[in-house]
């Protein structure tokens, strides 16, 4: 049986340092620290739970959960990410997960050749240096209603853990990395605001392993408090489900109004 050896979550943007160098560097240091910790765990595969930003899935098509089954992914190249950044995939793991979930009443969509935008590529830059460590992208829909509920996301994380533990080769080591959040508002009037109090409340919930509070949140509540971008919290909750609701440590938090985002990263011990 395989083993989930670690769980992490991180915001998934990087912008200009100008005007807020100290905060920007603290965020970058935090992402690097997450990368170092992932390296130290020597995982064979990193499952990255994140969302697209209207580049691969837009208002023409959205699905609640979509798994990448490609052997290789090439970054779209937004936000200055090199558009030749190429990341190894893990089709066998991905297909197996889809079948495992299907047998347990979760039907997941598949995508073969997405061009990962920053949502998937920024965490990959730290989780899979030079794209050498295989990733399995798990995309969530946070853009069009209905968005999957927090409880349903947590349960999907549990199914992922069950798959690794019962359906994968002996000694396979898997890290789960949730990406996105925390509070931010995109393309709406409140753009630029950060709800630091709510972000810190969320981080405390992860620190104490308060699964009940996190999985009781409705999407509407999250959007009201943390913005339409803050709904990316569901990516963290899937990761938490995969880690069995274990307690987290906050690696970094910066309420970066300059980046229009509450920037945060956590580590969960397996």
């Amino acid at each position: 049986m395989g083993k989930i050896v670690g769980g992490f979550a991180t915001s998934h943007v990087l912008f200009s340092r100008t005007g807020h160098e100290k905060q920007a560097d603290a965020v970058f240091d935090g992402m690097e620290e997450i990368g170092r910790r992932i390296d130290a765990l020597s995982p064979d595969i990193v499952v990255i739970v994140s969302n697209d930003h209207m580049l691969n899935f837009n208002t023409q098509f959205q699905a609640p959960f979509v798994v990448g089954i490609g052997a290789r992914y090439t970054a779209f190249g937004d936000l200055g990410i090199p558009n030749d950044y190429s990341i190894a995939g893990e089709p066998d793991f991905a297909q197996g997960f889809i079948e495992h979930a299907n047998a347990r009443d979760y039907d997941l969509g598949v995508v073969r050749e997405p061009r990962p935008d920053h949502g998937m590529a920024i965490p990959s830059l730290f989780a899979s240096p030079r794209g050498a460590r295989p990733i399995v992208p798990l995309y969530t829909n946070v853009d069009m209603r209905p968005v999957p509920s927090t409880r349903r996301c947590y349960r999907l994380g549990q199914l992922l853990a069950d798959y690794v533990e019962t359906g994968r080769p002996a000694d396979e080591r898997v890290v789960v990395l949730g990406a996105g959040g925390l509070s931010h508002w995109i393309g709406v009037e409140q753009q630029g605001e950060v709800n630091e109090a709510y972000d810190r409340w969320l981080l405390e919930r992860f620190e104490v392993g308060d699964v009940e509070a996190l999985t009781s949140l409705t999407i509407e509540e999250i959007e009201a408090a943390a913005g339409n971008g803050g709904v990316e919290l569901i990516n963290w909750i899937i990761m938490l489900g995969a880690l069995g609701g274990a307690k987290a440590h906050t690696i970094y938090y910066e309420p970066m109004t300059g980046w229009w985002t509450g920037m945060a990263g956590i580590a969960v011990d397996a």
Partner: protein
Amino acid sequence: MAKPITEPRAFHINRMLQSIPHDPTVAMGLLTDPEATYDRFGLSEAERAAFRSGDAGAIRALGIHPHLMMSWTLLTNERVRNFLAIDPVHGARLAGKGK
């Protein structure tokens, strides 16, 4: 019942905006011959007026998906485009991480 996060009345505008990153003729068209591009996607006079004004509030009020406001801003606002990118200082620390 929750308000849908994208409104059917604006789908033709969403289609225009979400084409920007994929179709250079749309991106270039909006910069060099916007009226022809509005024709291509069937924008009404009132919808064109919002884009001509460049006013974010007026464009949002058309009912477009909020995230697609970013496609428009990245195309038309160089200052924001340069700001919303990995800083060269951080890019240097990523050297070797990308291919």
